């Protein structure tokens, strides 16, 4: 995955914010009100303090007037603050939702090559942990960046109004803290990126080991794994310590700059009072008090903004990792004028197909097959000979490097993937069921099926009996390891029994099913295969004997083809394979 630059990522984030323009405007508006409120209140308090004049009676009615004004300002400010926070939440969590949706939708169109080559844990980590971190940073940015900038502008304005000389001094000194913050931030970005990479590595390791915990335990590998885990953990700890510590330096450093600003205001203000103002500015102790408190308010946002900058660094690093997935090259989209396969008869042919998973290892070379509608094609051969690859090509999980595959005379590259796949019923050796109930799984290819239809399909697959033994029958939620391999395969078979597509792919579809049940299913399969072009991969040669065409594969090539009897008569590879099953 290509690593986008920081600037590019920021651009992406801004683009992501576009749909929320109105909310953004609203949050800036409320930020304006709440900042104005927060700035006005101290002015009122300063005026109250100025009403306390030595030796004179205190004018309480004037003080009360001020208090009422303060109360009203407070009410408006608080409401604006709450609204601002709520809107910020809304923007952030909606953006995060959008990103997650985008990433997930992307996963659906990523080529299987990508999915096969990346660890699930890493991708899951990007979509969950990294996006979470991004949300934290973004939210903090919103709540503090706008108010921060507005507070700076506002306070500066007021300070100029009170005493422009002092305001000028403040204005000159404060940018120092921004320089400091920027200096630190640019140096910590790579540290964050590294920490987040190691975190990804750790997630992948956890995913692998926790996902296969049973094997781990069977081999007493807990200690070794823990050791390996600790190794990654140690590196993560070092990397996080560095990134967290260096980034957290920003705050104390800017705070120190602020302390200097504060002292400068105190110094200049006090000196003006001591020297009885040679400047054409009216100045009082009350004003100095207000100025000092503004100086505090003015510098604080610099602090926060610098804090936000480090947080944003981290967020951008995390956003970059999820954008890597989103920006990954998708599978080639269907041709614009791609055909939708309908009423498929089932004539399938391969013409001069070349394919390999990696360029340096050739696999399938100049493959030619022709299967007429309704034929049963059995594929046999030693493991690793390319049987599964053939299926990958038929289903367009992978596309051939060159050559063509036709269904009913249509090049499958010119057909929509969906309509192609809809016309195949596939049962793989590697059973996969989604989390959900038994009936949901059976109805996968036909979600509108009634319970009766589902049961009928389950009966045809001889799965009904064991389903009825589950705690809640058809409504039992399937857990990751709750069913045996054989039971899972029965459900996968029931799945295609329900949607009855015109072409079938059975890749070791009954390998984990006991032979008695298998025998019964074979009958159901035979009926199913009647009139349907079927590709059958199996090692039990008894299931293959009745095939119309047997393809014997070795090293990616078809070395023999014909019917069972023809091949036996040939006395070649196939007959050797066939006879070996009885050589006990």
């Amino acid at each position: 995955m290509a690593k986008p630059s920081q600037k590019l990522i920021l651009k992406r984030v801004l683009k992501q914010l576009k749909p929320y323009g109105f909310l953004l405007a609203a949050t800036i508006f409320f930020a304006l009100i709440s900042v104005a409120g927060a700035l006005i209140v101290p002015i009122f308090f300063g005026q109250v303090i100025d009403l306390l004049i030595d030796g004179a009676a205190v004018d309480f009615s004037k003080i009360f007037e001020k208090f009422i004004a303060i109360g009203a300002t407070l009410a408006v400010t608080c409401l604006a603050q709450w609204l601002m926070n709520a809107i910020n939440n809304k923007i952030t969590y909606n953006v995060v939702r959008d990103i997650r949706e985008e990433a997930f939708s992307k996963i659906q169109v990523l080529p299987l090559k990508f999915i096969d080559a990346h660890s699930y844990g890493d991708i899951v980590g990007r979509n969950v942990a990294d996006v979470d971190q991004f949300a934290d940073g973004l939210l903090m940015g919103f709540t503090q960046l706008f108010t921060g900038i507005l507070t700076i502008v506002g306070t500066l304005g007021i300070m100029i109004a009170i005493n422009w000389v002092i305001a000028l001094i403040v204005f000159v000194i404060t940018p120092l803290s921004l320089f400091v913050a920027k200096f630190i931030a640019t140096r910590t970005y790579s540290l964050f990126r590294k920490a987040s990479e190691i975190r990804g590595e750790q997630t992948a390791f956890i995913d692998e080991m926790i996902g296969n915990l049973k094997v781990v335990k069977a081999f007493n590998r807990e200690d070794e794994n823990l050791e390996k885990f600790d190794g990654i953990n140690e590196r993560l700890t070092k990397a996080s310590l560095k990134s967290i510590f260096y980034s957290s330096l920003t705050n104390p450093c800017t705070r120190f700059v602020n302390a200097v600003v504060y002292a400068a205001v105190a110094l200049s203000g006090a000196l003006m009072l001591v020297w009885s103002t040679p400047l054409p500015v009216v100045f009082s102790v009350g004003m100095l008090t207000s100025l000092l408190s503004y100086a505090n308010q003015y510098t604080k946002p610099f602090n926060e903004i610098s804090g936000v900058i480090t947080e944003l660094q981290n967020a951008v690093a995390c956003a970059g990792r999820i954008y890597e997935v989103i920006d990954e090259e998708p599978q080639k989209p269907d041709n614009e004028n791609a055909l939708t396969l309908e009423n498929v008869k089932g004539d399938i042919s391969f013409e001069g197909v070349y394919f390999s998973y990696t360029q340096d290892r050739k696999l399938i070379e100049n493959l030619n097959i022709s299967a007429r509608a309704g034929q049963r094609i059995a594929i046999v051969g030693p493991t690793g000979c390319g049987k599964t690859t053939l299926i990958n090509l038929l289903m367009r999980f992978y596309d051939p490097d060159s050559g063509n595959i036709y269904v009913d005379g249509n090049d499958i590259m010119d057909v929509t993937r969906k309509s192609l796949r809809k016309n195949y019923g596939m049962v793989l050796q590697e059973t996969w069921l989604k989390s959900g109930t038994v009936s949901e799984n059976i109805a996968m290819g036909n979600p509108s099926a009634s319970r009766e239809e589902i049961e009928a399909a389950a009966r045809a697959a001889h799965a009904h009996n064991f389903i009825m033994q589950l705690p809640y029958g058809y409504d039992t939620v399937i857990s990751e390891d709750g069913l045996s391999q054989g039971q899972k395969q029965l459900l996968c078979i029931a799945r295609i029994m329900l949607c009855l597509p015109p072409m079938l792919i059975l890749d070791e579809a009954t390998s984990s099913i006991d032979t008695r049940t298998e025998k019964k299913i074979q009958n159901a399969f035979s009926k199913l295969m009647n009139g349907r072009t079927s590709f059958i991969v199996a090692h039990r040669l008894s299931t293959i004997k009745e095939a119309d065409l047997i393809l014997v594969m070795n090293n990616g090539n078809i070395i023999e083809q014909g019917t069972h009897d023809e091949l036996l008569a040939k006395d070649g590879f196939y007959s050797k394979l066939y006879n070996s099953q009885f050589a006990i």
Partner: protein
Amino acid sequence: MRKLLKYLKHYKVQAVLAPLFKLLEASFELIVPLVVSAIINQIDTGEGSTSYVIYACLILVALGLVGLVSAVAAQYFAAKAAVGFSKELRHDLFKKMQSLSYSDIDKLGTGKMITRMTSDVNQVQSGVNMVLRLFMRSPFIVFGAMIMAFTISSLAGGIFAAAIAVLCIVVFGIMLISIPLYKKVQGNLDNVTVATRETLAGARVLRAFCKEDDEIDKYNAKNAELTKSQLFVGKISALMNPLTFAIINVAIIILLYVGAIKFEAGVLNRGQVVALYNYMSQILIELIKLANLIITVTKSFACAGRISEILDMNPSLKNGIKTLADNANFIEYRNVTVNYSDSPLNALENVNFSVKRGETVGIIGGTGAGKTTLVNVLPHFYDVNGGEVILDGINVNAYGDEQLREICGVVPQRAVLFEGTIRDNLRWGNENATDDDIMSAVNAAQAADVINAKSNGLDEIVEQGGKNFSGGQRQRLTIARALVKKPQILILDDSASALDYATDAKLRQSIKNLEYKPTVFIVSQRTSSIRHADKIIVLDGGKMVGAGTHDELLKNNEVYREIHFSQFEKGGGNG
């Protein structure tokens, strides 16, 4: 959260030093208003001199500098402690997860365990970091300001105390309400994790059924649920800032009113009123900062709760420490009954048989007959619900699990390999195995051609899940992995299903010829795989319906006969 505190134990020094330095920094900050008040009073009384003002301002800068040094120290110690904390927490959590029993793993599910390990731990780490950095500082500034107020006027101090009390109620109230809500947010995050994992693992099937759009819809619903819960708790947390702002400013109004009365009465001078005002403002600034952090901390409380749930799980298996003796009846099942939770039917019911050392036992039966369950209780992966499994005269519960698994070489149904080289994978059986040891196991497992086919031999990289090997190749490698162990008991749980008959036959022959003569359990659906076993156990629906040799069973066991003839035509010459 409290339970997790022990993970700070190795970082005690840092955990104490961090807030201490923060306090130091804060106390220097508290001196600032005193200095300013002194300047103002000097000017007010007309005694102010240029040199005094310069001197006082230099003190302000010096205070800032000392503050900087203490703050840097505090940040370092806080980061060190927080990062160390999460390191040890992750270590323990991983260890704990590895110690869970099979049934616990079934219950929890992988996705949930992964979010706890990653997202939850990260959240707690930032919580600890924040607490160390700010939770000491903020109360200190708040209470420090209050004490300073008391030194000026006890009535003013009272106002401070009342304001702080109200603040506490608001802050803790919001925290208490939002902790369970954040827990819910994390729960919804679990669902998003699980959905992402599932769509990756099931990519082939989902695409075959054209389920992409459906998947997206379902995921979006889960994602929207997460967003909804985040927004809801966000609205409540968003109250924190405005409320604290209002409370403090109301307190300032009261303070100035009382201050004005006292001023008129000549009890307080203007400098003192200004100082009181400044102290209250300081509290405000501190609390605004705090409000954002409280959200972080509240979140980490919720996450800590979720982590504790796992750390507090009692392993559902009990272990003993007995070691192996030498009995004639090596393995004995006595009335063994197993029932998985929730199931109305027993997975295994009243199974009785015994096995001598070095014998080969075949286990056969239909899908879901209980074959895997039968072999899974021997290495104590699951507890039996009735009866006992005896190994060498002693109940398997009495042995240490580690020892049991040392004795047993298990080849599970699902052939899983791990990321690393082939050699790394095979060494799972025995860390110290030499290449010769490994190759002899590989040869016995009929996996030599798998390794020869790879250009790097034993050094060939295995991708995660063994994705770059076919099912049959993986199966043979997992068998080799178990053989590298040279186990006393070898359990093959339908692990030759992807092998062709010839390879299967060769495999059985080479296992028979192993010089260390293991006791072998072969679970299979093919009678050809077990026909030469010393004893064959026939299972049907969790019950043992027959036991004996192939010939005996063929003669007098209906179920076995049916299984056999479903594979070999009756009377045909093939059998």
